[in-house]
């Protein structure tokens, strides 16, 4: 539907002249005596509504349905006309509700039958309606402002619904002519104004109301173009329920509504709580909720029936049990607000209250045979009830490849729980319109920048990280991602660091040490080194945020500088240290360099055998870098090596052999051949090939 179609603006003009005070002659018995009390009491005379009362309540019903289905964008301007014009509201969104209109109508009161009929006319109201249609609405204004140079795309169309008692067809023609003339006049005026817009299209709907039992003096007329701008139609209707029915049909036509009857609603009887009768409730909503039926020509198959005067059709859908739960995400192709036709009848209010209490109902297409098809769902959101259209046809996405078959599908140690926690921390919440922060960012921009900060260092798998597996790091990790830190926050971070230092001094085990094979003293040093490096990486990622973030990094750098006793130990194990340094550097540089030489590769493999964390370090820095080519074969040849991913228990034998191999490896220099071997096989006499002029670059290593 176009935003600025004819239905964007509706001007109601209701005749308030003395003849509207006439009775509709529809009698209503309001003294309903119960049998036991009826003896000896004379019932009161029935009451009857005036033409005015009929016109008002039917137009209010029109507005009620309209506001239920379109709370915004579809505006009503209500005008009452007698010897003067009473404009009861404006196009402003805040004026668009029935409560305001009812209050304004009460102030106007019923027509005064003693007023001079000569000076009263609905014409005043029609002129005011045209003037009003020229006035720009908030939405038109906003669109024109945002469209800037293409502002002329914003159209100005509208509809005038005039409820009156006309005298004759000639009278009707006079009213039409008057509207047309006024439009032409007003359009000239509007051309030169900012707050006014010329009317491009106007639909005039004249509803002639006459008392029941009388002959009409005005004939019905189909919609007819009076000019390129104005079209007009005339409805001649008896007052009372005929008028109500007519306006109900009109509101459906004007706003593309359709009707659905929910059938088989089980409802507890007040008197007999154990029994339940089945009820039907009719709802109005945008007709797109039936689009599947309309397009497939299935309207009748879907249980559509003509009712009443044959003017309306309704689609019947069956209440369906079991109900659905709110945590299920249905594939829903549309959701349309509803309005019950008979809003305060008992079945209607039972259904709406049930839904407003937060429950949802699936609706089923009644079919003569075959399987049951659930096509719709009723559900309320924030006190508004919506008819959801569920997809009931075959999906084009059926049988897709599972995510576990695709990229990254075979990795099993994703930090699913941690990322879940991350998602909870990054949940969204609505902020008031005026909420813009100091930097002028909208809330959604702030949400994006928070995600950016929180993901500066975020290893995706468990074996890539040490610090995020440590409870002790949590306070710092939670704080460091923040946009700004307080002094107290810095203190908390520092405490975390001191705590880690303390753990290191006490040689507390790190969570990583449960993984893979282990040694005693030296091993722990290495673990802590990795942990400190990772912590530094995390904090460094945020160091630019503020001076306080810098202070946290300073604290880490200061604290991790080796205490004296460790310094000593370092000297003792210089040889080993060297090797470790290389590995570590290696790990860091893989991104750029990758594994270049066989000797480095070998060392890496040896390191890993000895010390699992360094393997993690390697992956962490470049999850995408290619794995060493001969990794798998080597693992295969060394049967005792536990599969690294499985982290299963290590046999005593493998522990022992590893230890011996390590000890031995320190005592002698590795054979050059073994260093450059592939699958423990080294090619002999390589220089011969070279001498024969063949380029030897096998295994990626030149032996020159």
């Amino acid at each position, binding site marked *: 539907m176009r935003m600025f179609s004819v239905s964007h603006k509706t001007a109601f003009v209701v005749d308030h002249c003395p003849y509207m005070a006439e009775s509709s002659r529809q009698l209503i018995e309001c003294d309903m005596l119960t049998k036991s009390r009826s003896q000896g009491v004379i019932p*009161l005379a029935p009451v009857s509504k005036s033409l005015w009362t009929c016109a008002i309540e039917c137009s209010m019903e029109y507005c009620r349905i309209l506001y239920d289905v379109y709370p915004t964008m579809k505006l009503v301007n209500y005008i009452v006309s007698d010897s003067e014009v009473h404009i009861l509201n404006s196009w402003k969104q805040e004026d668009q509700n*029935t409560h305001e209109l009812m209050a304004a109508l009460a102030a106007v009161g019923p027509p005064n039958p003693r007023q001079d009929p000569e000076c009263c006319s609905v014409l005043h109201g029609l002129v005011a309606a045209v003037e009003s249609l020229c006035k720009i609405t908030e939405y038109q204004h906003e669109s024109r402002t945002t469209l800037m140079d293409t502002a002329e795309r914003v159209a100005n169309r509208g509809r005038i619904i005039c409820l009156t008692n006309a005298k004759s067809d000639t009278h009707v023609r006079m009213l039409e002519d008057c509207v047309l003339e006024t439009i032409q006049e007003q359009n000239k005026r509007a051309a030169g104004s900012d707050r006014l817009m010329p009317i491009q299209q106007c639909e005039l709907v004249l509803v002639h109301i006459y008392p029941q039992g009388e002959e009409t003096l005005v004939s019905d007329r189909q919609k007819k173009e009076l000019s390129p701008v104005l079209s007009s139609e005339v409805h001649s209707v008896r007052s009372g329920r005929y008028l109500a029915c007519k306006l109900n049909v009109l509101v459906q036509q004007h706003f593309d509504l359709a009707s659905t009857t929910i059938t088989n609603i089980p409802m507890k009887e007040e008197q007999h709580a154990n029994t339940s009768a089945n009820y039907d409730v009719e709802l109005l909503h945008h007709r797109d909720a039936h689009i*599947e039926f309309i397009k497939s020509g299935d309207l009748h198959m879907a249980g559509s029936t003509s009712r009443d005067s044959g003017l309306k059709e309704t689609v019947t859908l069956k209440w369906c049990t079991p109900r659905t739960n709110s945590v299920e995400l249905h594939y829903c192709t549309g959701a349309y607000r509803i309005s019950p036709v008979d809003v305060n009848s008992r079945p209607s209010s039972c259904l709406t209250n049930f839904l407003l209490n937060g429950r949802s109902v699936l609706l089923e297409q009644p079919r003569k045979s075959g399987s049951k098809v659930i096509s719709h769902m009723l559900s309320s959101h924030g006190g508004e009830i919506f008819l959801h259209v569920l997809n009931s046809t075959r999906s084009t996405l059926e049988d897709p490849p599972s995510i576990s078959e695709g990229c990254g*599908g075979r*990795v099993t140690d994703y930090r699913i729980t941690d990322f879940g926690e991350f*998602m909870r921390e*990054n949940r*969204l919440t609505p902020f008031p319109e005026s909420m813009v922060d100091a930097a002028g960012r909208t809330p959604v921009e702030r949400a*994006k920048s928070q995600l950016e900060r929180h993901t500066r260092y975020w290893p*995706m798998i468990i074996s890539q990280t040490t610090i995020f597996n440590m409870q002790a790091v949590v306070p710092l990790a939670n704080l460091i991602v923040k946009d700004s830190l307080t002094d107290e926050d810095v203190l908390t971070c520092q405490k975390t660091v001191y705590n880690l230092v303390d753990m290191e001094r006490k040689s507390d085990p790190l969570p990583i040490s449960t993984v893979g094979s282990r040694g005693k003293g030296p091993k722990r040093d290495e673990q802590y080194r990795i942990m400190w490096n990772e912590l530094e990486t995390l904090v460094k990622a945020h160091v630019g945020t503020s001076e306080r973030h810098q202070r946290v990094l300073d604290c880490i750098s200061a604290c991790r500088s080796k205490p004296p006793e460790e310094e000593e130990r370092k000297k003792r194990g210089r040889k080993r240290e060297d090797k470790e340094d290389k590995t570590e550097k290696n790990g860091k540089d893989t991104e750029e360099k990758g594994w270049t030489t066989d000797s480095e590769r070998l060392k890496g493999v040896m390191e890993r055998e000895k010390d699992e964390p360094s393997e993690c370090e390697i992956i962490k820095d470049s999850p995408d870098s290619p794995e060493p080519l001969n990794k798998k074969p080597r693992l295969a040849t060394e049967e005792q090596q536990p599969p690294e991913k499985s982290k299963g228990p290590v046999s005593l034998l493998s522990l022992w052999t590893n230890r011996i191999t390590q000890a031995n490896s320190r005592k002698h220099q590795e054979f050059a051949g073994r260093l450059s071997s592939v699958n423990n096989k080294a090619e002999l006499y390589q220089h011969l090939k070279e001498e024969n002029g063949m380029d030897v670059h096998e295994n990626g290593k030149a032996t020159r």
Partner: protein
Amino acid sequence: MPTVVLMDSSLSMTRPVSVEGSEEFQRKNLAVHGLTMLFEHMATNYRLEFTSLVAFSSLWELLVPFTRDYNTLQEALNNLEDYDKTCLEAALQGVSNVVQQEWGTSCPCQVVLVTDGSLGIGRGSLRHSLQTVKQRVEDKRFPLPFPFPSKLYVLCIANAEELQATDSMDNLEQLINLNGGEGQIYTMEGPLCLKSVQSMFGKLIDQAYSPFHAVLRCGNLTSDVQVFPRPEPVTIDEEVDPLPKSVQTDLEIVGFIEIGDISSPPVLSRHLVLPIAVNKEGDEIGSGATDETEEETSTNQMAGKSPNFCVLLHGSLKVEGMVALVQLGPDWFGMLYSQADSKKKSNLMMSLFEPGSEPLPWLGRISQLGPASDAAENPYGEDDSKSPFPIQPKNKRSYAQNVTVWIKASGLQTDVQKILRNARKLPEKTQTFYKELNRLRKAALAFGFWELLKSVAELLERECTLLPDSAHPDAAFQLSHAAKQLKLASSGDSKYAAYEHNITPMLTDFSGGGGAERI
């Protein structure tokens, strides 16, 4: 978007193509060659597309129902037989039926019509169909526009000059127009040969079957993905904004929402988000959707082993029961969630909301959604017991606010009876009595229904006279007080008939004491 290939197998397709080379081709051979190319492309890059093959002449036949098995399609294509004359209308009707039976009317489909451009003569010819298009009765309507959203691609094994020489081109253009302008005509450039047929089908592939690659981003975590089916551009209001909006190739997550809060939102379309491995040259090397040749198997295995953000995201969304709100373009959003196809298989799925700043009323404006941690008080509560959603609209709907409607006599009678029922239980029901009385009063004043106020006043007065001896004395006072107030209001006197004014219970010596004093 499923595809129907509608292949012309009339005799005219067997006309030989005059080429100076050694081999002699029929037009049909060229068409088969082109379609083979299309099928091969789909088998590798568009594997999840459902395609069916319909052949037509004066009759039509569904050769292969919708399938992803491109070998079957290819086989059927290779075994195509030759029939009589071209009768397009019946064939299009057939396509319409085939699609509706399988997918209903809401699923967008692509129809690829392959023909030599000789569209028949006399009755049943396209010319004849188009001439009579306006004189149809309801059940013999021309099949276009299709009842489902569609694109009609016409691939002519003929060059434009050839088609323009007759009225074929005009007729085909008219056909596209009848489909609401949705579609395109492709013709061959230069001589009819394998090369030009390849270039024509190449254009179709670029236009309609190029895979949509994007980068999914959550802060610094990213993944290369293919979005399937390809999201198509969307136009919401042609008048105000005629340019269709397209999904951008940078899909940025803005935050997360519970499934219960997003609450089955209406969506324009659904798409699979498949992580893909992109090697340094920027070529895709396996999306899980592609056919695995031996060479690809190893690369796929590699890709399977390196951690991918999509898999992490999918896992956590599934476990937590949440969705990720994702920005698709300026003022356009969608959601990512885990979709289970069966108990074992599940997938990362993306649904597109309608473009606009407020696609879901219960979320409010998306630009106003910010991180919950920015709020002064945790909107989800310390123990996750609360939620800031749904947003409550400013005004309540009629069904949520006890409106008064008297269009049916029963509505009015019920309201009057309610007052009388409470009147008989005074003074216990004093509050309810006045509440109902004031509701009726307000409505009667707004509707200008003063006669009703008088009638109800009389009813109350009569109730007063009918009170049993055992009645509490306060009841009589309240009834006559209420009746008097209603009468005053019915006079229209602005002092008593103000809409916002409420009749309050009369203060008596008995009021407040209730029925306790009665002995």
